[in-house]
């Protein structure tokens, strides 16, 4: 691709891409809370409760969005802006990471990773600007977790890039199909899955909002629609991590092209993400919570595995 897009085909291509991307982002806005609702239902059923309706999260968000925002009055200037920025970044990530529709924005892993991480960065800036100790401690935990999971994420990305000589998701995507038994890729896939699990704030890694000691942690300074924005964007982020995983692991090209392929893709994507999400929620339900140190230590081990993956990939395995 080049900066000056001249021929009509490319223009048409681009328009399609962006329309698809837009659709993806908009659908995600609803899909993410829906997944959360499903998660709550599953959690309830594992605990043999009836649990709320699947739409409950959406109702909650609607309620919060209708409320006026509330924020810690002593907090710094940025804290007011943080929710908006967080949401915008989440939507941006939703735009460029291909999810339901194959919007090949030529987005590469680095951009995707940075946007996804930026979501939690924007939030952390906010929560560390609060005057409430719980919020500050929660923010620190969020940041530490971010560092630790970035260790693994970087490893996974580097190994994929090294193995395929490219960073573009669209190119690197059919990992499994190309090499069913490339050890580095298997490790990388596993690591990516773990990252998705961790970034989804599933137990035992849900430490930044640990209710027992921090009473909501990083989010405690926010209420009303500001809280809604933050919660909503973190849900989107969580979903996008899974989307990234699916993008990379599923051999999309076997679905063929044209409208049929499109429909197939939507179906496959929805089924896969929902399934993965449900599995994650199930695990989340049957785990206790780590202390921050234990969580980081666990992620460090994963990170070492990903380093091995990088080395294997760079020697061509």
């Amino acid at each position, binding site marked *: 691709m080049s900066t000056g897009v001249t021929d009509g085909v490319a223009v048409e291509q681009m328009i399609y891409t962006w329309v698809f991307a837009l659709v993806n982002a908009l659908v995600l806005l609803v899909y993410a809370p829906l997944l959360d609702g499903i998660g709550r239902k599953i959690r309830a059923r594992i605990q043999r409760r009836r649990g709320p309706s699947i739409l409950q999260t959406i109702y909650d968000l609607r309620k919060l969005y209708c409320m006026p925002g509330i924020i810690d009055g002593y907090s710094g200037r940025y804290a007011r802006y943080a929710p908006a920025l967080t949401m915008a970044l989440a939507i941006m990530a939703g735009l460029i990471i291909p999810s339901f529709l194959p919007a090949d*924005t030529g987005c590469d892993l680095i951009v995707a990773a940075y946007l996804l991480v930026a979501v939690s960065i924007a939030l952390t800036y906010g929560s560390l600007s609060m005057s409430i100790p719980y919020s500050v401690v929660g923010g620190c935990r969020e940041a530490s977790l971010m560092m630790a999971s970035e260790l693994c994420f970087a490893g996974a990305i580097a190994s994929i890039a090294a193995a395929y000589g490219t960073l573009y998701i669209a190119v690197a995507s059919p990992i499994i199909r190309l090499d069913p038994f490339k050890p580095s890729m298997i490790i990388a896939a596993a690591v990516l899955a773990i990252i998705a699990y961790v970034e989804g704030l599933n137990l035992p890694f849900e430490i930044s909002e640990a209710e027992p000691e921090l009473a909501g942690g990083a989010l405690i300074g926010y209420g009303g629609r500001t809280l809604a924005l933050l919660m909503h964007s973190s849900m989107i982020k969580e979903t996008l991590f899974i989307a990234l995983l699916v993008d990379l692991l599923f051999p999309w090209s076997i679905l063929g092209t044209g409208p049929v392929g499109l429909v197939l893709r939507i179906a496959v994507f929805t089924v896969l993400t929902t399934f993965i999400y449900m599995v994650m929620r199930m695990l989340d339900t049957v785990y206790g919570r780590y202390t921050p140190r234990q969580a980081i230590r666990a992620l460090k081990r994963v990170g070492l595995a990903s380093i091995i993956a990088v080395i294997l990939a760079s020697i061509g395995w």
Partner: protein
Amino acid sequence: MPGTTWLNTYFLCIPVILLLIPFILSWNKRILAKGSAVLTSISSIVILFLGVSGLTSRTPIITVYPWLSCPCNIQTYGFPYPLVFGLDRISSYFLIILGLVSLVSSIYMFGYLDYLERRREISRLIINYPLLVLFMYLVIIVQSLFWFLVLWELMGFTTQLLVASRMTKKGVAASMKYYLLTKAPAELMIAGGIAAIIVSCGNATYASVAQTLHLASNHDVVAGIVAPGLILAGLMAKTGLIPFHSWVPDAYGESPTMASALLSGAASKVGVYMLFRLFMYFLPPLGVWGVVLVVVGTATLVYGTLMALRQADSKRLLAYHSMGQIGYVVLALGASIYLMAYPPYSVILSSVAAAAALYHAFNHSLFKTLLFMSAGAAEYAVGERSLDLLGGLGRIMPLTSTAALIAAFSISGVPPFNGFVSKWMIYASTMPAVGLLPICGFAAMFISSVTTASFIKYYTSIYGRPSIKHIGFSGEPPLSMVLAMLILAGLCVLFGVVPLIPLKLIGYTLTNTWLQGHVVQGLMPAVSLVGMNPSTVIAAIVFPLSGLLYGILISGRTRGVKGWFCGAEKPLDKTLPAPSHYYDDFENVFHEIYSFSEKTSLSLRRIGRSLETLLPRASAVFETPVYMAFIACLIVFLLLIIGLATGCLPG
């Protein structure tokens, strides 16, 4: 020689004259205080102009001034190494960096001076500051290795004086450490290397050295390995790369703010400049240097950033970070050599890497200068540097805090700011590559998240969180300081949102290296997202969108209420956790990496203690008579230059 233009001829010496004025007038400090700032800013504008013109003129200008070099003197006085000044594109690029940094930091100086006035730390600064700019300028534009050595020496000495110019105990100790660690050994090594090269080339001007080394280095061990090795070692010490890093935090931390801005923003780039010239211009791509640079760069960025994570002193934190960022630059530089030296000889990736190195060097001088300035603004307002005690400035100085936020975002590579683009080019060139590079790219990316965390700490604890103690200061710092910071912030955004501007400059610069010709098609694919640059797209979407969300959902409709303290309320300075312990758990888990740094820092402390004993003599060095003596020989030296140049020296 060709290419001489009237304009350049006279412009080249304008800064020299301007910058010399301060210590010619050095007895009257009052006038000087603002005066030197004015002079410096004017001359840096000139430098900027020179840089741009030198870079954008169709053919690279090697301007040799007959009335400066006067080959006639060679026979007359047996003086073999004519003083050749000139602008080729490499030096022009770094001239732009130098000009920009010195310009903004001297604008900043206007306001900052009266803070120094208050603390009576002004005297030596206003003389050393222009001096340093001068010598950096000369080092960049000199075109002869011999004279490079001389000027480099002077630059080092000025730096040392500048570091000590606060005359605080710590400051002097820092400058002595700087002396012990960089000058004494480093200069020797550089001198040795240069001598070897000159001997093997029989000539000192860059052009000819480049020609000979390109031919020689493949078979000649001395020219290809030993000499560059020596020079590299010296430059590593000067730019604060592992293992010669230990002076960096003290030097940057202890010197007055715009001095440290200048040091970290420009002086470190001079070292990078020489590295670049050495490996991209003098030498052909040799694999061994690729490996060395990649390893050194990675080690430096990992070590520097991880050390920065645990700092609680704003300036030391920034100092460690500038170590780390230089590590990124060196990594990219090494990567581009590596990629050209080993199969598959991927010219595209290599040129992307080289571009990334230059780009990141530029970005680093932008946001690091800005960050040092923001730290200085906090110091200006509160007179405090410890993150544990700062806070609440965001409400007092909105503009400054916004600038600081932008800088923090940029250095931590948050899209769409400039740091993102250059880092991303580094990953894009290292990760998909072969052999050693992917692991380095991985380290770089991991470390960039550490950078993020550490700047979350930096920003929130100075500007973000509420103030934990009473601040007897309201409103922004003086206009000039704010202006300087806003300029830099604007550039950070610009270089992020429209990367094609710096990339164009870089494109020109790279034509001057062994990458020439491949550059243009080399850069384009690396920076495209559906035909546009990702950061452009992101900026185009995220900024308006977040603004929209803020406008619709938050602003005006959000109530600030008192935070919830479980019903047990306490003054904030008691309840708010201290930044120095923010990442305890992380540091504790990654202790293997830290235990190494613990050892080194122990040795540092030993050096420090030995310095304590040296202190009386050390500070005596800077007492006026000696100092005046130094200035005197300086003037003599410059007269000598002019004399040689004009050939009117009796003999």
